[in-house]
């Protein structure tokens, strides 16, 4: 046996070792990879349960403006009630505090800490109405307030025979009050569209309130159809402004009620008290209030504060929702009586 034969044998032994190790590694890889994805799924389910079924602690952390991240001990978005509770009913105030334009915004770092996610996971939450409702003005004449209401689901398929209730609220400068048109009732056609016509409301301080009811799926929307409308935030019985305004001492609460199986839009008056330059307190907020309206003290701006909760909340701020390695899970929930979809994206910061 020559020396090169020993070398050749040694090389073969090393090759056998390397190839068998690689084969074992390769064979076990798919099951390990599946296991990691499965684990992310279970973690997402666990997180979703906590977010949607737990009210957090203190349970009134949404509408209590004195509670900030430092005195919040558990994070959850469920609506709390001393008596009966329903599953997957979220507190609108808690959800609205996840809006980064809200002065009471809850920073993601606090939520990550409260959810005990550490540096291991990142997440994003998306809240959007169960139906996609858009409006477009019909400019047949410049002095008409006619709008095309389009109701679709998110794949652009039209929602046929959805009941539409619409009412316009505007500032009447001569009487210096917030006035309203009559309610309009209509139904979407085969193309998912219908027209609402309010005649002629000659002011730019106006909003359009809509209630869509599709076999029990209720969507409430407030559209700013005039140019002199400023949106502020409504948390509990407080109107929160991003910049100082002097507001009127009276506010109009827009409430949605159901009478004889049909949704109607009504309004009630409430007093508005100034706490400081950017916080105003309403004397009372009806449980079915979906928005409040008031005017600036000089009568030049209509102020709208809505309970609509269409937003995205992410642990990495400013990143669009396209996470290639994220696991996503979604649930149907009710926020302020309206049907919403909540989608949770969860990803590992490192694999």
């Amino acid at each position, binding site marked *: *046996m020559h*020396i090169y034969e*020993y070398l050749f*044998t*040694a090389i073969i*032994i*090393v090759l*056998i*070792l390397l190839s*068998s*190790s690689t084969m*074992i*590694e390769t064979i*076990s890889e798919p*099951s*390990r990879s599946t*296991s*990691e994805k*499965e*684990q992310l799924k*279970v*973690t997402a*389910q*666990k*997180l979703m*349960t*906590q977010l949607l*079924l*737990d*009210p957090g*602690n203190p349970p009134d952390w949404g509408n209590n403006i004195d509670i900030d991240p430092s005195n919040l*001990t*558990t*994070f959850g978005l469920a609506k709390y*009630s*001393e*008596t*009966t*509770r329903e*599953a997957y009913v979220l507190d609108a105030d808690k959800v609205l505090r996840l809006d980064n334009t809200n002065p009471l915004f809850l920073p993601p770092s606090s939520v990550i*800490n*409260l*959810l*005990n*996610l*550490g540096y*291991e996971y990142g997440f994003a939450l998306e809240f959007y109405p169960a139906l996609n409702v858009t409006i477009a003005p019909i400019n047949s004449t410049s002095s008409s307030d006619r709008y095309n209401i389009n109701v679709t689901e998110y794949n652009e398929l039209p929602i046929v025979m959805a009941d539409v209730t619409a009412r316009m609220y505007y500032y009447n400068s001569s009487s210096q009050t917030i006035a309203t048109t009559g309610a309009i009732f209509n139904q979407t056609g085969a193309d998912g569209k219908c027209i609402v016509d309010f005649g002629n409301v000659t002011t730019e301080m106006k909003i359009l309130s809509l209630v869509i009811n599709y076999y029990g799926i209720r969507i409430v929307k407030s559209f700013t159809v005039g140019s002199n409308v400023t949106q502020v935030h409504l948390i509990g019985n407080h109107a929160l402004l991003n910049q100082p305004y002097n507001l009127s001492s009276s506010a109009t609460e827009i409430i949605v009620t159901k009478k004889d199986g049909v949704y109607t839009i009504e309004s009630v008056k409430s007093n508005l008290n100034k706490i400081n330059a950017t916080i105003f307190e309403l004397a009372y907020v009806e449980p079915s209030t979906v928005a409040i309206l008031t005017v600036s003290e000089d009568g030049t701006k209509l102020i709208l504060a809505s309970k609509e909760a269409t937003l995205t909340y992410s642990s990495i701020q400013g990143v669009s929702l396209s996470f290639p390695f994220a696991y996503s899970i979604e649930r149907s929930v009710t926020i302020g009586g309206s049907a919403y979809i909540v989608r949770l994206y969860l990803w590992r910061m490192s694999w």
Partner: protein
Amino acid sequence: MDIPLKHVIGTIALIGLIIAAGLSYTIIISFIEADVNKKQLNQIAEHVALNLVEIISLVTFANYSDIYAQMKILKLPSDLGGKAYTIQLINETSQNQGYYVQTQLVTRKDITAKSPIPLNSTQTQLKLITNEDGTIPVRGEDTKIIQYSGTVYGGTHDVVVWGWKESLWTTRAGIGLWKSIGG
């Protein structure tokens, strides 16, 4: 019979190489096995944590106190490739690590996995039992009882997660075993 020195050296080198290859192979296999075990422990920890969070939600949902606990029996593997494992509920809120479920091989303490519970404070209405032992009854069951503990063996049959609304302000929850009374 004369054997040239080069053959002696070559044969010894080959035998050495075969032994080294065998050892390397064992080490690699052991490493892969540990990795697989860790993944399995991770899955078990996640499963326990998910069920614990769900039972807590269920119990918290009820707005009344009770003398009985709610529980769920978990279907867990009795061992991992013949190796026993433990399930622990750990409170490290003081180190800002929160509460978590930890699973660990009994024979190899270095192979461990953990799954966080979305709770990072002791100042809540929820009290997770991490270092107490005791028993708690379940409604309608006279022959069996929950024996709760901060640590349970995975190989033990009928591992449970439980929750108990002790009062309107306190909910207790944890892990334990579903055992016959006196047995």
